[in-house]
């Protein structure tokens, strides 16, 4: 909104400038005429830090046979979980290096289980003021112990005693120091797009975050105790929708 005001003011001044110049040249001001307005100060952004609380909902479709590629089905249902998050987000007074701010956050995925689904993130973003609302786009990295909702195994037991199964899981590529095994965490990038309304005190935001997580797709076949494998992995997009409410701190 401030940016829009600035643009309007600028357009107005540019539009008036020739007339003003002309008036100065042709008709010197008299005492009765109003004095020209001083140029307005540059409008200041609504800057500061917000403490945000949010709700996120994941639904995706990566576990089925043909789902090694994300099909863009945000409302599919092979994994399905809800998360809570808290975030501190700072907006700069002016954009720096094209950036409007940064944030750090913690998200608890699938609140039923405390042992997994703890994620920390940091993000940088740029917002665009469209007068009625802002659009914000950003990206960052996330690290932690992922929710078990992303682990899935589908078994097929044959009548001859054979067993076939496919295990799909987020590849652990990081260590959570101080607890458990040495490869128990994940680290991945994400991108985010949201629309938000920021008041002097409150903020409300809704958007989508797309996490790019490397998933493993491991196929096993056991026939008469002989085991065969077909392992693969690839970066997979795992999106979620979110809504955040925050207040200025």
């Amino acid at each position: 909104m401030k940016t829009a005001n600035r643009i309007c003011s600028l357009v107005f001044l540019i539009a008036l400038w020739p007339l003003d110049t002309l008036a100065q040249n042709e008709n010197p001001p008299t005492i009765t005429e109003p004095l020209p307005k001083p140029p307005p100060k540059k409008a200041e952004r609504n800057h500061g830090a917000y403490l945000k609380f949010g709700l996120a909902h994941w639904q995706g479709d990566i576990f089925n046979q043909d789902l090694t590629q994300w099909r863009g089905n945000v409302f599919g249902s092979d994994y399905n979980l809800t998360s809570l998050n808290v975030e501190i987000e700072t907006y700069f007074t002016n954009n720096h290096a094209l950036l409007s701010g940064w944030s750090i956050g913690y998200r608890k995925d699938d609140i039923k289980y405390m042992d997994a689904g703890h994620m920390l993130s940091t993000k940088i973003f740029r917002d665009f003021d469209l007068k009625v609302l802002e659009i914000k786009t950003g990206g960052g990295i996330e690290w932690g112990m992922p929710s078990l909702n992303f682990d899935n195994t589908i078994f097929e037991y044959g009548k001859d005693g054979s067993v076939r199964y496919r295990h799909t899981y987020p590849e652990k590529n990081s260590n959570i120091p101080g607890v458990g095994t040495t490869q128990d965490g994940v680290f991945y990038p994400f991108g985010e797009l949201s629309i938000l309304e920021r008041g002097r005190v409150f903020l409300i935001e809704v958007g989508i975050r797309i996490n790019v997580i490397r998933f493993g797709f491991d196929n096993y076949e056991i026939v008469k105790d002989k085991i065969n494998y077909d392992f693969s992995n690839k970066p997979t997009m795992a999106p979620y929708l979110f809504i955040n409410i925050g207040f200025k701190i």
Partner: protein
Amino acid sequence: MKRFLLFSSLILATFLTACENGVHLSPITPSDTGVFDNNTTQDTVYKWSPYVGIHATNEATDAYRDALILLKRAGNIKGVRVGIDKEGGQRLSNPVIRMVGSLGGIDILGLIDNYYLINNPNMEQDIDQIFAAYPEIHYFQVGNEFTTIVSGNGGPAVTIEQYMTSLKRIYDHIQNRLPNRAVLLTQATLGSGLHGPVELEKMAKLGLTQMDPNKIIIAINSYDPNGSSEYTGILSGLLGRYRVWVTEAGISNPNLHISYVQNNYGKGGPFQNYLRAERVYWFIMWGGDGPPDVDFSLIKNPRNFPNYWKSPLLQLLTGSR
């Protein structure tokens, strides 16, 4: 402010609408003490893994036989896990193992007692004797909860390093002498908390990963499968090439046996999803070596055969109610 509220209401409504289809409720827990409807029965039987642990206690043999025959008729038993004790005097002619073998069609997992693995200079000869005594057994588990059970029951303090030394001796002996005689299972690590996953990682680094995945299977005892998150990294990483069996599972409350199976076994359950366990053994058919009978038991008071007590889960699985 009005615009702010309007915007808030709009996106909140949109978000809630989008999430509506994602609400998943836990399955309604049946009353295990009641009569089960068809859906409960079908769901439980569908998810059930047809494997049960049996204490090789001779006094329960008749009740064991009866329960196993009932389960077999219903198609709900394919294998049992039975201990081969070093102490007890009947280690190589156990009547319970003989009885299970005589029923036919029931696969036996022989659990080699921890005490075979401790300060035993004759370990290889003992293994040869066990193999000779039980030709009907193809799967042998080498120890069980080694670092917690032995010292926990008044035995010597033992380490996972000692265990791995013993496991490698047995593994090498079998591969050298009788490579196709048996498939081994590791000692079962504990399935909840951090002890088990960390211990399993140590086992991997102490030589487990050098063993042939066709010859050895990872065993885990998991009573709280939702607490098994720390296993996911090691089972899909260092030990990703190995099979996994859950060799003990269950809950110590007969009224919750059925809901435990419904919530944890089968497709979508944590044993399959997180641990990728091919088999899950219910902890125990009868845990009554020392009274009172433990509440994991599928049967109680086996000495009262044929009028022994059957848990609601066993009744459901045998179709007797």
